[in-house]
């Protein structure tokens, strides 16, 4: 069920294509950046400070002590409950993303120690169909929460999602109550549930498991939204402030506890986990 993987310093091979090249272009500022420096800097652009998306394995390496962790296999529900086709069939889309990411679906989970506290961490892969929430995400969260419950360990969830997976229709929506029920079990057991909001966390995800953490940590500048900015500007004709729906804006509006630099994420998370689980700091 859980197979042990210990990763070296460099990112997981599956996601490392880009780091084969010596130089790369920052998606944000367009600067040519030294690939090694970008990766050793947790995928923060050394020129403009842009936070590039991280894969789950990269997150695990960043967060777990000594980059050591065990992965927990995620359940993969049968494909395509609606036999959905738009311009492309959902079945084909799934194939494409499975090929490009090497993963079966969005979420991956691992268990390891963070500042000495055994913790279950579930992370979204935005590269897989925009991190969209279908049955696989729901089942994955339920499995991961169950694992935390069984181990009496805190649960850290790191969303990055464009929202619902429309190709699963109502099945996607139903993951909202299902995941909330799994989180409720952790709360009843007195186990910490921490959400680390990363860019972007939008749509149905922010109307369910991503907004009921005991503590909400958000990466600097991350966009966190229920309805997208353009939807609001379009339908309502309101002019929105520049920082609308950023991590900082949400902190100001009472929804986020802590805004962190990516470089401080591990230590911040470690401190919070240690305080909530009453483990003495190393």
């Amino acid at each position, binding site marked *: 069920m859980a197979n042990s993987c210990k990763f070296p310093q460099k990112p997981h091979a599956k996601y490392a294509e880009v780091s084969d090249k010596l130089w790369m272009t920052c998606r944000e500022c367009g600067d040519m950046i030294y690939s090694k420096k970008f990766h050793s800097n947790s995928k923060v652009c050394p020129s403009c400070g842009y936070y590039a998306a991280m894969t789950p394995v990269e997150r695990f390496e960043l967060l777990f002590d000594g980059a050591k962790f065990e992965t927990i296999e995620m359940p993969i*529900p049968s494909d395509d*409950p*609606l036999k*959905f*086709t*738009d*311009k492309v069939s959902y079945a084909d889309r799934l194939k494409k993303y499975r090929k490009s990411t090497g993963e079966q679906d969005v979420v991956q989970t691992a268990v390891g120690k963070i500042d000495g506290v055994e913790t279950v961490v579930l992370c979204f892969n935005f590269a897989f169909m925009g991190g969209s929430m279908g*049955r696989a995400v*729901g*089942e994955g969260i*339920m499995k991961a929460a169950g694992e935390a419950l069984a181990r009496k360990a805190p649960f850290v969830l790191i969303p990055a999602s464009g929202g*619902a997976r*429309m*190709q*699963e*229709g*109502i*099945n*996607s*929506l*139903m*993951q*909202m*109550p*299902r995941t*909330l*029920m799994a*989180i*409720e079990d952790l709360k009843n057991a007195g186990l910490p549930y921490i959400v680390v909001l990363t860019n972007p966390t939008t749509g*149905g995800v*922010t*109307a*369910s*498991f*991503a*907004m*009921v953490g005991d503590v909400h940590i958000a990466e600097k500048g991350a966009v966190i*939204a*229920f*309805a997208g900015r353009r*939807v*609001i500007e379009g*339908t*309502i004709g*309101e002019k*929105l402030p520049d920082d*609308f*729906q950023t991590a900082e804006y*949400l902190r100001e*509006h*009472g*929804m986020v506890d802590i805004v962190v630099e990516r470089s401080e994420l591990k230590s911040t998370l470690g401190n919070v986990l240690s305080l909530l689980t009453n483990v003495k700091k190393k």
Partner: protein
Amino acid sequence: MVQLLPFEKSLEKLEVGTPAYDKELASIYNKLSSYQKTLVSRHADRPHGLDYINRIFTDFQELAGDRFYGEDQALIGGLARLDGMPVVVLAQEKGHDIATRQKHNFGLAKPEGYRKAIRLMKMADQFGLPVISLVDTDGAFCGAESEERGVGEAIAQATAQCLRLSVPMISVIIGAGGSGGAIAIAAADKVFMLEHSVYSVISPEGCASILWRDPMMKEAAADAMKITAQDLKKMNIIDGIIDEPVGGAQRARFDAMDSVKTFVVKELKALMKLSSKDLQTQRRKKYDALTR
């Protein structure tokens, strides 16, 4: 006279009540497409939340406010009796003319609406009253002020509160079950849909715009997403379908509402026989199994 929908044009030439009319009406309503059902579910004359409150409940006492920020008339709540049983009722209300649509914000609730629902669900729990919710919304309000006050958080907490109840909760989708704006008050022990209501993760128009990049593909999107009561029952997402009068609830409002009452009362009586513990165990099993 009820306003005719585009696909009802053939009724124009027929006299209401004649056998020909009835036959044509039945024929149209026997083969409604998913998108046609969407239009029926949005029909202006369809009974809305407050219509149900006035028709099928007694002793209704509206309770206002979330005790944090405001009062939201898109989501009405209060105490009432259903067939003599005291309940907490939550009902989304779209309004039926310009003034009432504005008052009720077209049924698009803001965070304070969902937080009021949470407060009233806690009250239901506190006093052992079942919760009945009548769902009819195109979704939560998508405005800056909704985001500012954390509409996502409010929906998540409302949904969690439904699942946390120690009392029975029954939801009926009476018109549109619009995504998160609906599930927030529809994560119930039993969820029923009216025959011509729809329930979906995004509107057909929205889905078409995003996936087809063409809002005109709304019919295809409606079909593909499987949003009708009949689709959802087949997938075991909902627990049952409440029949509407031929031609839809908008053509026989009282009959439609009365059959909702009969249906819900029967289901509620069955749920009220369960202990809180059994109820919660059953609810947990239901949501565990859902979509599996």
